[in-house]
């Protein structure tokens, strides 16, 4: 039904954004060179990519079974968050306008998807695979730790509590988008904001890699700021979810940066050594 259309538009817009960013920040030659010799990079990130895949698979399962499980083991923090911050989101919205809503809806849907995907292209194009590995590990941590939080905490977003004071502007502007957001998350999983945490992680990575992509760093920082603001302005997240997201994003960033450099060939060698009864692979 409507979902395919929404996904189609998303793919087209984000694809265009990534194409433009690749030309501007990376350069076609650099990407082309990397594509001609992808194996060292894939070798370096394979263990992390597999872990990410497993985490995403778990997340998929958790979307179906997690909420029921969460109600049993988790704690419902919605009332506490509402008691702490009250109608802050409504106050934030009062500074808005239809133009701001449009801009932030764009940031929330397309800006976020761009921030999530473009760094993989950019770091793939680098000669050294370190940053690509760091990014993959950080993304895995974001999803993995986020999933743990989703199970531990039941939190409904502002639209489920202060709907009248802080209307869900994105869904009013673009009702069909809810078909997509419903596919990727449940309404009890507002804490922490993964939009926030992943954006913060990517911005931190962009600053770390500013020597490679000098112009991308400020763009990523601004885009991340807009995504973070949009999650609150569109009444999708509480300020507390965003705070939790910032903490998660930074934890994931440092976790990713300090993740051990284990490539697929290292693992293979290690496994081989183990089965041969030797402690070190043959030189």
């Amino acid at each position, binding site marked *: 039904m409507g979902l395919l259309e929404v996904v189609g538009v998303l793919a087209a817009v984000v694809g265009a954004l990534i194409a433009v960013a690749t030309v501007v920040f990376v350069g076609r030659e650099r990407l082309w060179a990397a594509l001609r010799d992808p194996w060292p990079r894939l070798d370096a990130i394979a263990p992390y990519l597999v872990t990410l895949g497993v985490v995403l698979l778990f997340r998929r399962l958790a979307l179906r079974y997690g909420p029921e499980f969460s109600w049993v083991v988790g704690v419902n923090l919605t009332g506490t968050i509402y008691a702490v911050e009250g109608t802050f989101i409504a106050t934030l919205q009062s500074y808005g306008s239809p133009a701001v809503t449009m801009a932030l809806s764009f940031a929330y849907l397309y800006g976020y998807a761009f921030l999530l995907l473009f760094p993989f292209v950019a770091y793939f194009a680098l000669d050294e695979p370190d940053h690509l590995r760091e990014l993959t590990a950080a993304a895995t941590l974001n999803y993995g730790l986020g999933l743990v939080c989703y199970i531990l905490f039941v939190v409904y977003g502002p639209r489920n509590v202060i709907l009248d004071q802080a209307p869900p502007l994105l869904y*009013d502007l673009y009702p069909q988008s809810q078909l997509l957001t419903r596919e990727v998350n449940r309404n009890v999983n507002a804490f922490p904001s993964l939009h926030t945490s992943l954006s913060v992680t990517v911005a931190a990575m962009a600053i770390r890699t500013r020597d490679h992509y000098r112009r991308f760093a400020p763009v990523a920082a601004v885009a991340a700021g807009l995504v973070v603001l949009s999650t609150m302005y569109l009444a999708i997240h509480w300020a507390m979810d965003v705070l939790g997201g910032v903490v998660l994003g930074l934890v994931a960033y440092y976790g990713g940066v300090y993740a051990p450099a284990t490539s697929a060939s290292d693992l293979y060698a290690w496994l081989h050594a183990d089965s041969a009864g030797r402690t070190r692979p043959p030189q």
Partner: protein
Amino acid sequence: MAHEKVKPVGHLRAGMAGDRGGPSRRSLLSATGTALATASAGCLNGVLSENARDRPSQVSLSVTTPPADDDPNAVRIARQLVSNLSTAGIDARLVPEGETQLSVNVLLNREFDLVVTDHPRIADPDRLRTLLHSTNAEGKGWQNPFGYSNLDVDGALEAQCRLTGTDRERVVRELIRRVVRDQPFSVVAIPRYYSAARASVAFEAGATTLQQPLDYLSVRPPEDRTELRVLLFDGRVLVNRNPLAVEYRDRGAVVGSIYDPVGRRVAGRVVPWIARHWEWMEEGERPRLRVSLRSDLTFHDGEPLTASDVAFSYRFLADTSLGAAEEPVPAPRFRGRVGLVHGTNVPERNTVVIEFEPCSREVLRRALTVPVLPTHVWTEKSRLRRRFLTQALVWENRQPVGSGPLAFESAEYEQSLTLVRNSDHFLFRDDLQGAARTFADRPAFERVTFEATPSGTAAVELLENGEADAVASPLNDETARQRARSSTGVQFRRDDDWSWYVVGYNARRPHLSNPRFRRVLSRLVDRNHVVEAVLDGEGIPSDVPAMRDRYVPDDLRWNGESTLGPFPGEEGSVDPEAVRELFREIGYRYDDGTLVAG
């Protein structure tokens, strides 16, 4: 403590004064010892008696409510209540819970303080018996979820069941008066029911929306189409199609179209449905009804439906363990109705005699509206999962086998459900007799698909685009209503007021067991403001749990304010001083602005 300390000092002085020429060492020691002993004893006594008492602590209450995704109005009423409780010095917390979880916590586990939700309006006062009779407090589901017990109310509930006519009305009025006085739960307002459909969809035979099983027999898809595409906001039927499940309580329309009862309520009266006719038998101390079923009835899987299935259904709904458990394990949803039945016997293949408890026929007919279940499917569901919990109560019944006008075809978990017209149904017979004739050759479509949609606006947009035909959930969201009103391809539909917003109190919890406390809480909801601001004027304020005027004592009719007293504030917000005075009047105390107890 300070006061206690003074006395021993005096005692010490007396001792010293009694010994001329200065206190001897011994007397001094002894005096000091006594003094210390007395002092410490006094002090200790104080400490002990102080600590033996619980410190007064702030009263705290949680307010459970469905989130706005499930019901945008309930959460706003709940917020008003939380805010007013806070102003009253109570530590109040909002607890949004999805409808399934809310049902589990409130109806099964009784884990709540206050709950704000909608509840079907009570047309027949006998429903109050299920809701409030104290012997139901250990039951599950809507059997006295409030844990309320009042012997006078119990007596009136029993009496109304036996009486008829004006005698019954008089007893019910007295019952309503007691219930309003005691506030086991508070009625807040009656919302109007709004829904929407494509302009080309026809509603016939008096139906206006898709709330009841019969509505699906009355609706006609656009001329050229044989399929009806229906949208739901509440996707529970897309997961669970067990007619016995409490936590997946829907309005019953979808599952109710799959399962046929002996008699259906048509225009307010229970009329023969799978029964051809029935007659009351005069002899015997208990009322007995001889029910003759229509001939050659079948379930959707082709198995014949006979009088023994009817008898089985009553036995099974009364004890889903079929005798395997020490005590019966009734199906909570039907306990009130099935409890009216004493027993059954089957003299002929298509005849069943139902023996009832002594009650009026008017009340007893309710018992005929429970679903008839196929014996061959449900017998094995009597297996005990744990104590007092059978497979029948937790089974999802994804591929239901009933005998109703709609039969299961296919489903995608949480996404969609397709039912097909049951062309073997008696509604398609040429010799169809009785009140069911209104629905001859129905439904008017071959298949109906249900899909979950996230919000009212998304639903109206799908209707506008012609991607769906009707919405079967209430359109509570004002934005969606406006859009449905102004859209040309969409008809905006209004139906009778079908539910109340209520505040339920868990009388098993401290303070909430006190009717005076509940009476004050009931006044903390500004019913006029709820209707104006929350329901956008689309409803009426109310505080009496009776639907029909003849059951409401004259002096309890709504006259602008609750009979318990005016709202202690303005525009939905209580005045801090006024509300605290209400709690002081019933014997509560304040400490630095917080309501304390203990």
